[in-house]
């Protein structure tokens, strides 16, 4: 089984729900519609032997359209054939929910808690979705782009002179 075969099987099975294949730095990215991500990963795990969920994380794109302002990124690995795949799901800011992967992979538990903690993504079906790194009383989601790294009221330091702004403003 090679990469092309996996992609063919996926596109056959989930026609119209996956798409936008990109190949960057040796890894294929497949974009999946939110409602099908659990089914896609289940199919990959059970039928195509992608038995190792390497990593999952969220990304915030504040400049995107409302429908695509957040993305969940899954890296999944078939250890038998040494195939890696990246799956990306875009989420709208108004409805940040996605199915939890905990029924398939035990490792998703804390990673999803971490994603919830930093981005506020709600995982449906997660057994214990509470903050993990930050304190429980916290009300913000600090990895979102609008959350400032330092106290915005600070006047003793001008970031422009320290190379710390993102776009050189």
């Amino acid at each position, binding site marked *: 089984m090679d990469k092309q075969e996996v992609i063919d099987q996926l596109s056959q099975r989930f026609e119209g729900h996956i798409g936008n294949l990109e190949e*960057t*730095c040796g*890894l294929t*990215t497949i974009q999946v519609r939110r409602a099908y991500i659990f089914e896609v990963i289940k199919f990959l795990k059970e039928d195509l032997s992608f*038995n*190792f*969920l*390497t*990593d999952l*994380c969220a*990304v*915030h794109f504040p400049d995107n359209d409302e429908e695509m302002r957040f993305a969940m*990124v899954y*890296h999944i690995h078939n*250890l038998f054939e*040494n195939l*890696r795949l*990246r799956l990306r799901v875009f989420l709208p800011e108004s409805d940040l929910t996605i199915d939890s992967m905990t029924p398939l*992979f*035990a*490792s998703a*538990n*804390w*990673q999803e808690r*971490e994603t919830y903690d*930093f981005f506020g993504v709600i995982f449906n079906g997660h057994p214990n979705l509470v903050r*993990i*790194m*930050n304190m429980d009383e916290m009300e913000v989601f*600090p*990895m979102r*782009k609008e*959350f400032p*790294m330092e106290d915005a009221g600070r006047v003793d330091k001008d970031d422009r002179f320290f*190379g*710390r*702004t*993102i*776009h*050189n403003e």
Partner: protein
Amino acid sequence: MSVKRFEEYIKKHSNDPEHELQVLNLGPTHPSTHGIFQNILLMDGETILDSEPTVGYIHRAFEKIAEHRPYNQITPLTDRMNYCSAPINNIGYLMTVEKLVGLDIPKRAQYIRVIMMELARITDHLICNSVLGVDTGALTGFLYVFQLREKVYDIYEQICGARLTTNMGRIGGMERDLSPKAIEMIYDVLKDMKKTFGEFETLMNRNRILMDRTINVGGISAERALSYGFSGPNLRAAGVDYDVRLMNPYSSYEDFDFKVPVGSSGDCYDRYCVRQAEIWESISIIEQALKNLPDGDFHADAPDFYLPPKQEVYNVMEGLIYHFKIVMGELPVPVGEVYHSVEGGNGELGFYLISDGGRSPFRLHFRRPCFIYYQAFAEMIKGSMLSDAIATMSSLNVIAGELDA
């Protein structure tokens, strides 16, 4: 802090004379946790019925800080994750950026990196294994091999000027060449290692007390280990031969001849043995790398990313311009996204980097092996004795810095 389900359980069984229930806080600071994390245990006598881990005590928001820093200032953040094997973290991050940019690194630089990463792996494993001895009551082995770590740190110092938080390497190669003095030191330490680890293994491997304390303690099946995202020596101890160095070779690992030791039951003793066997493989890799160390440059010819020599900075205008641009963080990193992983001391250490062409990463996510496999700890210690939980934790080699990022 209290856990509701523990309190309910105790309330329900409070009149039962067969049980002696209590809630025990193991941590946040406990001598055998080697870092700051807490486990709230529901105990029945000396048996653990249930546990609730709390993490995040030394969370430092590295992913957020990384979004506000130029690419070459992120390396110091990475060596504060797994501080027992900082060079692997540094070089793993640098290779991620190089993969995104598409830089070709000269063979000599790759071999120097392999030597440094394998030295780091040895120090990581020797701490884990000797501390397993300490936690089961044998301080001798620990003191005996710890001097080796000091010697390896002297080599780091010779190569990059720092000992613990190394900030080793630069985007495009190494910051300086391997000096004859450093090569001599590495040969010396290898000689010491062979002698010392030989004696350490005579002391530990068939030690009745260590075997009694670790065999069939804290075991995990291969299937559960994969589901929990185990990688590295902990996964190999359960019998899965997954090693990133072999499966997705990076930095010329395909040039070296080494074995991947595997265990069978995934218990503490298997993890000990796998780490010990890996130390010998690492020593062999370093010897091969030193023997076949190619001539050539120790960094890529990439003036946009790699600082020019000081001679040029002071005498040639182009050199000064490039120096200034790089120091101010003006690196022409292309738009794109990349995932790169290396075999860290504890498993697959991954870096997921998204660049929007700006001066800082748009998003940098670290796949920290400790964070992912530490979730299994609660399941692994369920039903075991308190003293077994201590041995399990130390043989898992959970590094607080990596756990909390």
